[in-house]
């Protein structure tokens, strides 16, 4: 109740201010954002994810505790800030979510194609989101350090760069249209520059995140998916090479930035 009353007061405050005191309105929005930091519902998804990692599930009735996310079977601490990376067993560069899906398939016997086709927010996609939230939390405040030692990893960086600047769709938008310059914003939403390290806890370092406006927990796959939707692009497949390559580009550029995931957003 207290939170809602205070939010209501803030909203009224913003609406009644004339345009010339715009800075005050923006400050009001900043205050609202600061208020959101305490009590992040992402904690609920984190707890769920940790349970799902340890729970026997799927046709094989197995846990995910042997899943190799890049630092050996079962190691979860520090893996988030080194993904995406190359995996020898699948001969693919994979991000967190596609790698979790691989483990759900190989260790637990789930149907990977079906889960990849399931829309976000439904069925086993919720499992992936909760798992990703917990894994990300296990690297909280650690600095991004994606490996580029394998040729595939370097190739995917170059692919990701081309994807980032690829103009398309009805509006000729590329990722760079919004994220290619310093200090820009879309409406009132600040846009981090993603062609280099945009700073701690920003851009690549801010997802998975809980979005208050729609009460949803989003992983990086969903964030990229929704960017493409608004760019008027066709639908990027879940865990597809295009999305993984983009993540490599963003993650390598963010080298040294501290991860704040799971974060909270408006």
């Amino acid at each position, binding site marked *: 109740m207290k939170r809602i009353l205070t939010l209501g007061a803030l909203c009224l405050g913003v609406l009644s201010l004339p345009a010339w005191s715009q800075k005050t309105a923006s400050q009001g929005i900043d205050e609202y954002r600061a208020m959101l930091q305490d009590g992040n519902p992402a904690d609920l998804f984190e707890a769920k994810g940790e349970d799902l990692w340890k729970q026997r599930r799927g046709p094989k009735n197995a846990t995910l505790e042997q899943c190799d996310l890049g630092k050996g079977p079962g190691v979860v601490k520090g893996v988030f800030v080194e993904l995406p990376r190359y995996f020898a067993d699948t001969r693919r560069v994979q991000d967190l979510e596609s790698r979790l899906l691989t483990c759900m398939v190989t260790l637990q016997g789930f149907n990977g194609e079906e889960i990849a086709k399931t829309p976000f927010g439904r069925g086993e996609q919720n499992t992936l989101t909760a798992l990703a939230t917990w894994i990300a939390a296990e690297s909280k405040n650690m600095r991004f350090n994606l490996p580029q030692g394998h040729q595939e990893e370097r190739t995917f960086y170059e692919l990701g760069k081309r994807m980032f600047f690829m103009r398309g*769709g009805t*509006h000729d938008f590329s990722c760079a249209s919004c994220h290619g310059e310093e200090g820009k914003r879309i409406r009132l939403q600040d846009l981090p520059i993603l062609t280099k390290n945009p700073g701690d806890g920003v851009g690549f370092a801010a997802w998975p995140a809980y979005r208050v406006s729609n009460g949803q927990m989003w992983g990086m796959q969903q964030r990229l998916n929704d960017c493409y939707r608004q760019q008027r692009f066709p639908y990027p497949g879940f865990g597809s090479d295009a999305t993984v390559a983009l993540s490599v580009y963003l993650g390598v550029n963010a080298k040294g930035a501290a991860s704040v995931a799971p974060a909270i957003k408006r």
Partner: protein
Amino acid sequence: MTTPVLFSGRARAVGLALAVSGLSACTSGPTVAELDALTDAVVKASFRTEAQAKVERVTQTDETNRLCSQADASGKPLDEATAKAIEAANLKSIRWPSDGRFLGDWKQGEQIAQSGRGLTWTDGANTPNGGNCYNCHQMDPKEISYGTIGPSLLQYGKIRGVTDPNSEVSKPIVEYTWGKIWNSKAYNACSNMPRAGHMGILTEAQVRHIVALLLDPQSPVNK
């Protein structure tokens, strides 16, 4: 143990990636040309049509987009001749008002500028599209929720000395404004701005209203 195939396109793109890497194994990795070809393959394998968002939107982009994407990715801007050629081709594609009327109703223009609807895979095929204008530009000074990706359009007509949009002396500005909204790349080859008329985002009637929003002396933009 076989590699689990999560969806068919992926295996092909991976195979291509490895084959390409294999080709240049003796040197330092795939060449620029190989990377460009690989990008096309990955795009084709990764995206699918969803509702009205057809996959051709990325697999069949036009010359303008392909050349500008290349310039952006390589960090080497287009040379003057290529840029001018792109601008000329886009200029040629502009459809001027069928009835000769360049200005419509600024009030409707404001609504179109405020709307960001249309053409995504969650938009119905029959709902009118919006102009998305406030996402990038400032226009009506009363609207504080504006973006800064594009320049501010505050006092657009006033700054350009347009007191009567129907006069002969205003004609060049009026035409430029129509042209810029219809096809922004006619004046700047690799402009960040969408080509609202040319790409079928806005109708002739809608463009007319936006031109009025910017040039009508009664519009809040010019007050």
